[in-house]
């Protein structure tokens, strides 16, 4: 049994390991982008993770890639943990993988998203801390097509399915009409523009927002992030909304379309604005676009408390998310102090590897 760095040609073996453990690994395109990004970094110490090899098979994997964050006019190097999987029989070896990850010396902080209770216990033992934003264990849904939600719950075919779904939908709309349609009352006060392509202004706006508000915000101009977004745009899976005031961007959002068990749904990936009215306008426009695109709902999760409070004004449905803890660790004393404050964080679904999974 040996631990070594991930190699480019490990893709199929890692994918097999994931499949064996009922998990989905990245697409070949994402894998390729990760390797190009590693090559572009020119830092030989960087690695795309580690694997445990036993009798020429890969029995464990922990992925790692470098992201950059803007924070107070500084560029901060972050090592993102992903794809931590070890075959059940060899689970005791997963400690060796996480040790390799936290032993890296060439990054400012470590960051991992969507830990379950067990993996959270392990990373905590390595002095990782939960990010001080406390609403990550809830997911918020605003329904844009109640009939599709019913089809989501009744996925199996049965006699008179269409009739029964229509009947239930009638009663749901009768009793929950106010809650389901509440978002439609919102009046958009800003000039909101729909974009289906990437504009450099957006990166500049996010950077400025980070500087002005002293918040840790992902640098979206990196090759890895840009290529991932371009890929999603090419597949018609993403849209952007931008708010202009006096020809300047004052707010933007990114929304993703995906299929949840075969039914179209949408997830707000990022939401940044300079004032409450802009936030509300962006949410409303995203809801309209989600409805037009045939999505059953628009999902909000992994945002800071202030943004969630605005979402709550739209009377969303709430679901608990028990396995959704974000953890970080920094060995840099100054950064450590800053990251303890909840005001330093601007979490979104751009963080970690969430976006790579679609």
């Amino acid at each position, binding site marked *: 049994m040996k*631990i070594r760095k991930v190699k480019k040609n490990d893709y199929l073996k890692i994918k097999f390991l994931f499949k064996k453990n009922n998990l989905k690994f990245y697409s070949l395109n994402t894998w390729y982008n990760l390797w190009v990004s590693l090559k572009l970094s020119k830092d030989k110490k960087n690695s795309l993770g580690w694997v445990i090899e036993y009798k020429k098979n890969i029995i464990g994997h922990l992925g790692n890639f470098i992201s950059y964050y803007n924070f107070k006019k500084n560029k901060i190097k972050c090592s993102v943990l992903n794809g931590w999987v*070890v075959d059940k029989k060899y*689970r*005791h*070896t*997963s*400690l*060796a993988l*996480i*040790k390799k990850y936290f032993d890296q010396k060439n990054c400012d902080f470590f960051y991992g998203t969507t830990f379950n209770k*067990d993996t959270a*216990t*392990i990373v905590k*033992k*390595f002095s990782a801390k939960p990010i001080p934003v406390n609403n990550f264990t809830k997911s918020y849904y605003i329904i844009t097509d109640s009939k599709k939600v019913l089809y989501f719950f009744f996925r199996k075919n049965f006699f008179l399915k269409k009739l029964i779904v229509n009947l239930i939908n009638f009663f749901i709309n009768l009793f929950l009409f106010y809650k389901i349609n509440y978002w439609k009352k919102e009046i958009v006060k800003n000039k909101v523009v729909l974009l289906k392509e990437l504009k450099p202004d957006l990166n500049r706006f996010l950077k400025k927002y980070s500087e002005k508000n002293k918040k840790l915000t992902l640098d979206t101009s990196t090759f890895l992030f840009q290529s991932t977004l371009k890929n999603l745009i090419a597949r018609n899976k993403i849209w952007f909304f931008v708010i202009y005031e006096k020809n300047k961007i004052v707010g933007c959002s990114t929304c993703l379309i995906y299929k949840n068990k075969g039914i179209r749904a949408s997830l707000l990936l990022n939401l940044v604005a300079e004032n409450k009215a802009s936030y509300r306008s962006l949410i409303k426009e995203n809801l309209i676009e989600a409805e037009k695109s045939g999505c059953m709902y628009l999902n909000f999760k992994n945002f800071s408390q202030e943004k969630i409070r605005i979402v709550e004004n739209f009377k969303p449905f709430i679901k608990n998310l028990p396995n959704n803890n974000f953890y970080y660790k920094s060995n840099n004393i100054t950064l450590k102090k800053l990251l303890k404050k909840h005001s330093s964080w601007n979490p979104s679904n751009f963080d970690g590897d969430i976006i790579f999974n679609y």
Partner: protein
Amino acid sequence: MTAKKIIEVSIKNFNKNNKRKDHLVYADNLQILGPKSKMDSLKVVNFFIEVENHIKKKIKKDLNLLDDSFFEKSYKFKYEVKDLEKDLNQKLKLKIKLK
């Protein structure tokens, strides 16, 4: 309090929080990590947390058992209770000396 006693009490506490099939029985050659170990990573971490908490409570010392020396030993071959006992004795002595 000896290292042996600390481990015995920690095993007792660990067993209270785990299913019967995962219970540990004290023995010098009980493998914490290794091919014959019953524990996965989470259980190893939980067991070490038990030991560390017990030391903190009784001896008022903060120890980290998942350090470099543990990883050096454990991933070459195996890590048994007797290794933990040895490590504990060393670390506790060092802590007292430093004090």
